[in-house]
Each structure stands twice: as C-alpha cells, then as structure tokens.
C-alpha cells in the first residue's frame, strides 16, 4: 500500500496542475477574496457616505429652521424648481434633475399653531444599495421634531429641567452581548466554510481523476492489477494519496485564511476583521482542520470511486462536475438565516461542517456537537471507503 502511496505522491508533486490546485489556489484565494471584498465594500460605502444629494424643498418658508439645517448639511445640495405636484417631482427625479424632493404642506405653520399633526413627504429613489440620504434626512427630522416639541412645551411653561424626560420618556441604552468576533463570525463564518469545503474537494479532484480514469486511459492500471499485491492495498494507497492532497489543500487554505485574514485586517484598516482574526486561537484553526479531515476522506473516496468507474479523464470530469455543484446545496443551506447547529443539523453531511466552522469562528462552538459531527462524518467516510474498495474489485467497473 505504501509503495503505491509514495509513488502516486511523487508523480503528483511533479505535476504542475496539482501544484496549482492544491497549493497555489488555496494560498491566493483568501487574499484575493478578502482584498477584493474589503476594497469594493469600503470604496462603495465611502462613496455612498460622501455623496452629495441634490434636493428640492417645497414650501420651505413653512419650516425655515428645517430648511436651513438641510441647506447647511454637507451631504445636501439645494436645487431650485418650479414643480410642486407630486407627479412632476417623481418625473423629475426619474429624469435625474435632482435626487430627492421634500414636500412641506402649505398649511404646516397653521397646523402647528392649532397643535395638529402634519404630514410631510419625501420623494426619492430608494433602490440604492446604501440609503445614507434617508439616514441623514431622518437625523435632521428627529432634531427638528425635538426642537418643535421643546418650543411647544416651553410655550406651555413646562419646567425646562423636565423637558428631556417629557420629550423622550424612555431612553434605551443598547448593551450588545455579542462580541465583535461573534458578530463577524455570524456574518462571515458560513462564507468561510463556503470557501474551505469546496477547496478540499477541488484539491482532491484532479489527483483522484488522474489516479483512476487517468491510469485507465494511460494503460497503467492493467499492469498494476497484475502485481502481487491485493486490490485493497492498491485502493488504499490511492485513497490516502487523494486524501493527503485534499488535506494539504485544506491545511494551506486554513493557514492562508488565518494569516491573510490577520494581514489584510491590519493593512486595509479593517479593524473589526483584525480583531476577530486575533480572537480566533490556534485551537480553533486546528479544530476547523480536524473537521475538514473526515469530510476530505469522504470526498477522496467518492472521487476515487467515480474516477475508477470512468473510462477516460474527460468522462471522470463529467461525472465529478455534478458532485461539485451538489456540495454547494448543504453549504448554501448552512448560510440561510436562522439555521443553527443542533443535534439534527449536526447529522447533515457538509452542512454540519459548515455550521461548525461558523460556530468556531464565532467562538460559540459546542464541543459535544463538534464530536458528533466528527464521529458521524468519520462513519460516512468509512462507508465511502468501503464502497470504493468494493467498486475496485468489480471487473465491470475496471474493464468497462
């Protein structure tokens, strides 16, 4: 078995494709993902935050204080218009004449005097990804409302010391129990699994195809079969080679994730990422790797079985493509809101590993459930290896 293992490993290490899929891709995928995501996110957010919104205000004289606040806000630029009807304002926004219209009713002052509520209108296109404009407007509106309340209450001779309590009887102070790491883990943990798990499959795919279908195509399998070693030894030799490459891929991926996460977090000014990454201990990274171990074994056995069945390299690639797509289903399920790691989900292959990785990154992993995932995936791997060995003994598979 070890003769087969070392020979396969020697051949793989001399193969450029293996080096690309198993070593280079995992090393560079995280900096690319972190870098591009961080860059795009921060750039779009900054642009949206600093954007100047062109506005028109109808009946500004009814609320001069508010109109002034809006006029002097750095993110708003006033545009003059004769339009006052809602339909005309909507059309003008669609024609990009301005971005937002604030319509103050013509009887606002009168209603204020009569202590009646007034309805204002804000007309704008809400389809933008970052709605900073409405946030700025809401802040101004809140301040304006408060000011109006203060004025009214002062006119009614209310004790100024009690104004704050009357205007805002309850002031809620938010205490978030979630650490920043937990927050970021919840948001990005599943995404990390979404990258790690397919990379384990990808790292094992090419070697598996080469060692099964590739060997058939080259005519070396027949020669190997007539050597005085058992077919179980041949399968296990090949299986351990595929597993090794899958795990090397996973190890490099986890290492790359840890190192690049920390580096990019510090360089790109993404303090939250840096903080979260520094909170993830080596133990958690080892646990993540440990969970990837049995699932890599499942992948290795399945890939080898498929590859041995296929007649050619190309046929094997055709069979493996649906498998690559299928593994994304449980990974996507793990990313769904509200899907948590429970005893039930711990028994769903792939999804369980993805959820566990999320929990580990959040720092809230239940070690009992982790053991359950490890055990159940190990059982699944044993079944897959058993099937692979059985498959390799079938003439109809080997000599199709």
């Amino acid at each position, binding site marked *: 078995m070890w003769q087969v293992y070392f020979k396969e490993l020697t*051949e793989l290490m001399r193969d450029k494709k293996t080096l690309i899929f198993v070593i280079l891709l995992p090393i560079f995928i995280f900096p690319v993902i972190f870098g591009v995501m961080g860059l795009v996110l921060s750039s779009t957010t900054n642009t949206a935050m600093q954007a100047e919104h062109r506005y028109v205000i109808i009946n500004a004289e009814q609320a001069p204080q508010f109109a002034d606040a809006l006029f002097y806000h750095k993110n708003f630029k006033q545009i003059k218009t004769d339009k006052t009807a809602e339909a005309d304002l909507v059309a003008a926004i669609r024609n990009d004449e301005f971005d937002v219209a604030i319509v103050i009713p013509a009887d606002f002052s009168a209603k204020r005097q009569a202590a009646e509520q007034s309805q204002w209108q804000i007309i704008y296109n809400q389809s933008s990804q970052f709605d900073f404009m409405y946030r700025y407007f809401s802040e101004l509106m809140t301040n304006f409302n408060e000011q109006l309340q203060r004025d009214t209450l002062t006119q009614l001779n209310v004790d100024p010391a009690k104004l704050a309590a009357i205007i805002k009887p309850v002031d809620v102070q938010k205490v978030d129990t979630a650490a920043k790491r937990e927050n970021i883990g919840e948001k990005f943990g599943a995404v990390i699994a979404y990258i790690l798990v397919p990379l384990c499959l990808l790292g094992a795919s090419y070697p598996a195809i080469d060692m099964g279908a590739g060997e058939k195509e080259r005519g*070396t399998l*027949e020669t190997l079969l*007539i*050597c005085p070693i058992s077919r179980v030894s041949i399968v296990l030799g090949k299986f351990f080679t595929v597993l090794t490459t899958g795990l090397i891929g996973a190890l490099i991926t986890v290492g790359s994730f840890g190192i690049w996460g920390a580096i990019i977090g510090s360089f790109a000014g993404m303090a939250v990422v840096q903080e979260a990454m520094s909170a993830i201990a080596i133990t958690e990274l080892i646990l993540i790797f440990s969970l990837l171990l049995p699932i890599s074994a499942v992948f290795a056995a399945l890939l080898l079985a498929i590859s041995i069945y296929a007649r050619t390299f190309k046929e094997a690639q055709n069979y493996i493509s649906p498998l690559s797509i299928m593994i994304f289903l449980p990974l996507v399920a793990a990313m769904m809101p509200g899907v948590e790691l429970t005893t039930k989900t711990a028994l769903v292959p792939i999804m369980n590993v993805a959820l566990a990785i999320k929990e580990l990154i959040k720092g809230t992993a239940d070690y009992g459930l982790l053991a359950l995932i490890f055990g159940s995936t190990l059982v699944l791997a044993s079944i897959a290896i058993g099937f692979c060995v059985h498959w390799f003994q079938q003439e*109809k598979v080997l000599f199709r």
Partner: protein
Amino acid sequence: MIDIQDLAKAFALGKNSKLSDTEKQDVRYSKEAFHSVRNVSFSCGAGEVLGLLGPNGAGKTTTLRMLSTALKPDAGSVLLNGVDVLKQPVKARQQIGFLSADTGLYGKLTAFENIAYFGRLHGMKESVLKQRIDELFTLLNMHDFANRRADNMSTGMKQKTAIARAVVHSPKVVILDEPTTGLDIMTVQTVLDFIKGLKQAGTPVIFSTHHLDEVASLCDRVVVIDKGISAFSGDISQFRALSANGDLREAFLSVLNVVTNQQGAA
C-alpha cells in the same frame, strides 16, 4: 509451463444496447452478452515461444488478460507452472511478467523509477533490484535514458522501459501483447533478441503479434484465435503445413477461412 484448457469469458451487454446487423450474424453475440472468448486451449512448455495470432477483436487480448489474472475466466482453467490462477491469483502473479498492448508507463516517472516501482511491488530488495535494473539496462541498451521521464521518451524508449518493467522480477512466465507494434527496425530487433534470450533461459514466452516474419523467426508454437476460439494450436511446422508452399500468411488465412465456413454452416 503454461497450460490453458477450455477458457471462456463473456461481457454483459447493456440493457438498452442494440446489436448491429453484423453483430447479429456474429456467433459471439447473444441478447445478454458478448462472448469474447468461447473456447481457447493451448499449452507452452519451458523454453518455448508461442505466437498468438488472430485478427483484431478475435479475443487475443481477453485471453492474455485472463492468463495474467487481470480478468477472471467464466469457465476453463489456467495453470502456470502448476499454479492455478483462479485459486491462487497472488501466487500466479508473482510468476508472470506481462506487457500490455499499451506501454502503460507513468509519465512523470523516469525509466529507472518506473521499473523500480514494479520491482518493489513484487517485493524485491533494494540491492537486488538495482542490480537487476542495471542488468536490464545493459540488455536492452537503456543506459542513455535511464533518468528520462516517460513523458519525454520516444516510442522505442517507452517500449524498452515497459519490457524491462515487465521482467524486472525475473518472472517464470512472460506474456507480451504486441510488443513490436509501432517500433522502428532497430528497436524491433532489440526486442526480438530479448525474447530469444528469454527462450534460451528456459522461460516460456507467449506473445501476440500481427507480424508473421516474427513468428517465423521466433516461434516454436502457434495458436490462432478467431471469433473467440482457438482455431489452430500446434507447432510451427504443423502450422506451415497448412499451406502448400509453407507460407505462413496462407496458413493463417486458411485457418480463418475454416472458421468462417463453419460459422456460415452453423
């Protein structure tokens, strides 16, 4: 000594496979299976070279695969120096040196590594293995490309490496499937000389070929397989006697005609 009796092997046809008109007329096809080898018997003694002849698709490769234990026969027996390949496949494999029709080399390994790998799989000790490889390199004139990867070898280099790999463990029985196909004259000569060397050493050699001149110069015995049966099995003089002037081509065609006529009559 190689002794094969009443060997048969069929391959199941797919449930939805449809036979062509030619296949329907072929006695080897039934609704369920393709009977690649129906009844093959022959023997080859120590120091004998047996030429296995037959048209393409006659069942030669399937027969050789059963001999080499790669395939299990459905019926019949194969004895290699008294070892039953069905009952003791691992022991039988230790005695066989098999060269498949494909050179079957690992492209990323050098000539030395390819041969050494199979020597190790046969349980050879490192010191013995190195000495044997050196001996084979000299015999097959391979020293110049000992450290060249198979991917970068010419067809002749590959074939020499494949032959060396097949016999690295000094097998008691050698089976060669079309060992000279696609080779230049010089390499063919080296291969033929090598087979003569095996014969002189008392090793029984079975080799399938389409080259009758090789049969004439090397073989003690001839077996013609056609449509899955051993249509002729005998020594080279008996084979020559099938034609009026001792021409091997005529002898070969006469054997095939007999089979075709028998099938037509059936």
